[in-house]
């Protein structure tokens, strides 16, 4: 029997269905000349539904905006309401918020890394990084009761406390992950195939970062030093020691490096927070009774970048207006800037570099301007990308290991 081929369903492929694709790339020969997109497949009218829920229920609703950035939206939302109320939350709650947010960052970056590995043809990387996501999800389940959708955030504090007896268990799991992450980071930095494949590919300039308002690792990989956790610290980020990670070139390689190094910083942050709350007792919430009329703005640093919430209150128990802006909303348009002029075999990995929300990548098609017809869909693009990696391996004389 031949080698088992892993099919990772990034989404439904419909070569026969004539429908507007999410991304349509127009190409001449091998080069991409234009990008068009049509979002909306994931539109669930959350902002409208939010107006019919009361303030506390909204937290549960917006957790489900995105499964991967599940806790970043509640953090930004409670920051917005606490901005309106001008209240301070207890210190213990600040540390717990940090811990949850950083755990999410690690699992999101590892997920991304696995998918990027698959796009390049390294299916073992995919299996491996998703295997090391599991201990992170186990820690989340230990603290909150669920692997995702933790429901930990509450206006005024957090919903659940972290018990002292759990802290050594959490630390032990973290140190296992840390060792693996360090090994992975060094492997990526030293690998000649990844360097040949990803350096100089999909470059996003500083000017484009500004024009589109890009945020998160997408912006930091281009040398733009923005991170909500340092610029306007919330939770416990100003109480502990940590660094913002930036790179200079803005290509996909730098985006990968930024994400990997951020995972290591996250572990540093979590360990400091655990030490700060261990052996101490404290309140985990400030009681909030009414939300007076006014407006509030809150933002937080999700794994993909800044998530922004605006709320307006008229003194009743529901928001009058709740505006949500996820980081992908500003990051995905940068694909236009980083993709034009590149070859089709690199499209899959450039798109992955932007780290769009999962479901968005499913509907990509490539249209050839000369032949005047659609020639590839996303599964084809992944194959092209994997084949290019094989060619690069051959050129460098490196044995390609799946």
């Amino acid at each position, binding site marked *: 029997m031949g080698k088992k081929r892993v099919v990772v369903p990034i989404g439904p492929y419909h070569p026969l269905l004539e429908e507007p694709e999410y991304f349509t790339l127009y190409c001449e020969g091998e080069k991409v000349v234009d990008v068009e997109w049509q979002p*909306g497949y994931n539109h669930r009218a959350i902002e*409208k539904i939010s107006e019919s829920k009361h303030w506390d229920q909204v937290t549960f609703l917006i957790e489900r905006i995105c499964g991967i950035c599940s806790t970043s939206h509640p953090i930004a939302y409670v920051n917005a309401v606490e901005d309106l109320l001008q209240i301070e939350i207890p210190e213990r709650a600040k540390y717990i918020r940090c811990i949850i947010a950083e755990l999410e960052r690690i699992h999101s970056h590892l997920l991304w890394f696995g998918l990027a590995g698959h796009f390049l043809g390294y299916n073992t990387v995919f299996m491996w990084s998703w295997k090391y996501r599991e201990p992170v999800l186990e820690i989340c389940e230990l603290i909150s009761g669920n692997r995702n959708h933790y429901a930990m955030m509450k206006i005024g504090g957090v919903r659940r406390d972290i018990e002292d007896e759990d802290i050594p268990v959490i630390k032990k799991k973290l140190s296992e992950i840390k060792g693996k992450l360090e090994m992975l980071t060094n492997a990526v930095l030293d690998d000649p195939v990844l360097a040949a494949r990803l350096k100089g590919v999909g470059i996003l300039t500083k000017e484009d970062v*500004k024009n589109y308002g*890009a945020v998160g690792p997408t912006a930091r990989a281009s040398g733009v030093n923005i991170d909500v956790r340092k610029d306007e*610290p919330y939770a416990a980020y100003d109480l502990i020691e940590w660094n913002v990670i930036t790179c200079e070139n803005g290509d996909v390689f730098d985006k990968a490096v930024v994400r990997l190094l951020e995972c290591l910083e996250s572990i540093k942050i979590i360990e400091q927070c655990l030490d700060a709350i261990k052996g101490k007792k404290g309140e985990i919430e400030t009681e909030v009774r009414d939300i007076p009329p006014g407006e509030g703005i809150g933002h937080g640093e999700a794994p993909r970048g800044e998530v*922004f919430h605006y709320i307006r209150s008229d003194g009743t128990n529901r928001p009058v207006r709740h505006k949500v802006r996820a980081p992908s909303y*500003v990051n995905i348009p940068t694909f236009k800037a980083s993709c034009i002029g590149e070859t089709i075999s690199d499209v899959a990995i450039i798109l992955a570099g932007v780290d769009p929300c999962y479901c968005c990548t499913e509907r990509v098609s490539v249209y050839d301007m000369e032949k005047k017809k659609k020639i590839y869909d996303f599964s084809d693009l992944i194959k092209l990308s994997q084949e290019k990696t094989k060619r690069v391996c051959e050129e460098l004389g490196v044995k390609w290991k799946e």
Partner: protein
Amino acid sequence: MNAENRLREKFGEKIKIEKPNEKRIYVTCDKDDLEEIVKFIFRDMDARYIVATGLQNFDNFEILYHFGIDEEGKVLSVRVYLDKDKPEVKSLTHIIPGIAWIEREIWELLGINFVGHPNLKHLLLPEDWPEGNYPLRKY
């Protein structure tokens, strides 16, 4: 000089500044002055474009354009009020290319017209969504 003082110095009477707390600045201006003010904030003050929020009040429409002043850790929001019966404002895509999407979204969900937008068509709703049906409108 900090952000609000720079704005006060440049635009004086044309704007009204409210600061509910140290980190949040709300600047209210006339829609005819909007372009000039946003150009100053985005280019001269080098602020970061975040997003825009559209909403409907009982007797008018309102748009807030949000910018990040990251060196000071503040968020600056520019507020304009639009006419209740014919809400429209000049598109800002020639200043901030990235604002194209949110202007389309505000148009399709609230019915506010962005004059001069290069591609004002449905972003999130399906193509056959009934015309004149603006889901986020209340009145």
